[in-house]
């Protein structure tokens, strides 16, 4: 027994070591998902110090929550709700002003394809409520009165409305801004590798181990299938598609991306994916390009240095921007 004891102890140690190794979580990584901003917010972050990592992720979620309180139109005390209720002007938080500034810039450069003043139109269609419906032509025309790139003016922190009845909707850019801020907070806490994903609108900070992050792009007509993929590092990836939110009436599908010219869902595209250095910009541009369609959309994109896009037209054809392919991995098996 005495002679065999070391052998048995070695075996015992092997069993314990194997069990311990197998049960270890991925070193220095934390993943957390919460329901915020009307979507799922997923943060995956890495840092060798577990306590610091936990603090960083909690602080990033706190920042998103704070911005939601500022810009959620359903909260009566939010900047957006107060701005819609006011008749002339309102002083807002610096973050709200920054979102409006960015949104107005894309609105002007896209000739109104992106619009921050579609609150009345969206409420009329009811896609965020329990009873979506196709409104009458007169109702739509009334909801479009006074909208456009000049409907809002920003002077410092003061936002002026050209029409007292305008209802403001920052949804097309506020979510992206919140992701950008969460990434900044993670960076302030020393995190250099992370992904912040707000329902598919995401920023990829640093790399995934020794390689770039690899992002699958949803196929617009095959649920759960991947159309293609991109490799991303310190990059925003945002996709807008007509399959995200919709309802059907009289055999026809109506989705949530509205053409401000007609007041009806835009039909030039199935989906648009934008790569940019900020999620807020990518968010706004994805909507603008979706409304403009492939030809005018790519023309608008050429004015934005370092921004790339993949536009899937209404007929299903793919229209990549000139630099898109540099982000597609060589072994991509997508169509």
């Amino acid at each position, binding site marked *: *027994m005495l002679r*065999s004891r070391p052998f048995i102890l070695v075996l015992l140690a092997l*069993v314990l070591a194997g069990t311990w190794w197998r049960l270890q979580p991925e070193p220095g990584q934390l993943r957390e998902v919460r329901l915020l901003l009307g979507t799922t917010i*997923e943060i995956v972050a890495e840092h060798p110090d577990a306590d610091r990592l936990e603090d960083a992720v909690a602080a990033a979620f706190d920042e998103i929550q704070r911005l939601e309180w500022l810009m959620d139109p359903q909260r009566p005390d939010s900047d957006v709700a107060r701005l819609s209720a006011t008749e002339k002007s309102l002083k807002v938080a610096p973050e709200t002003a920054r979102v409006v500034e960015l949104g107005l810039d894309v609105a002007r450069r896209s000739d109104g394809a992106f619009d921050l003043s579609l609150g009345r139109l969206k409420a009329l269609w009811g896609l965020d409520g329990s009873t979506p419906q196709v409104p009458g032509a007169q109702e739509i025309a009334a909801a479009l009165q006074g909208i456009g790139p000049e409907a809002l003016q920003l002077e410092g922190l003061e936002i002026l409305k050209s029409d007292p009845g305008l209802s403001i909707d920052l949804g097309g850019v506020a979510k992206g801004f919140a992701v950008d801020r969460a990434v900044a907070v993670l960076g302030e806490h020393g995190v250099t590798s992370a992904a912040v994903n707000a*329902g598919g609108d995401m920023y990829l900070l640093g790399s995934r181990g020794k390689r770039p992050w690899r992002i699958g792009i949803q196929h617009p007509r095959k649920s*759960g299938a991947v159309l293609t993929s991109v490799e991303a590092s310190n990059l925003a990836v945002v996709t807008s598609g007509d399959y995200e939110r919709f309802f059907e009436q009289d055999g026809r599908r109506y989705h949530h991306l509205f053409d401000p010219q007609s007041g009806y869902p835009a039909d030039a595209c199935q989906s648009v994916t934008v790569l940019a250095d900020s999620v807020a910009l990518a968010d706004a541009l994805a909507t603008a390009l979706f409304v403009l369609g492939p030809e005018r959309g790519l023309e608008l994109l050429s004015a934005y240095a370092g921004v790339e896009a993949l536009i899937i037209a209404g007929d299903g054809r793919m229209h990549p921007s000139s630099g898109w392919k540099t982000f597609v991995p060589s072994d991509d098996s997508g169509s």
Partner: protein
Amino acid sequence: MTTGDCLLAVGLLSLALAGLVWCATGPVGERVVVSDGQKVLYTAPLDTFIEVDLEGPLGLTRLRIDEQGARIIGSPCPLKVCMGMGPARRDGDILACLPNQILVEVVGARAEDAPYDLLSR
């Protein structure tokens, strides 16, 4: 070495071999975790065939787990976006019904040869 020693050694050796196989088999033990965004409401192995009703503020969301993965097949929400999300089967895949506050996540070991880390949709 006594007979008892031999039996103990054989037992431990078997355990060690089983452990080695366990270490090498990759992404096993994937589970479906359902929460309301804060607290866990339900959890089940991904290889279980099951249909379950999950209660949210609007009513019952029906979750099915089968060979295709986990997917929402019934929901009281108005737009049924959650039902159009398709199946979740990879580690990190998420389904959500925001109106009914149901969040479905697949968790488990990640395959290194997975085609993507996150899905933009």
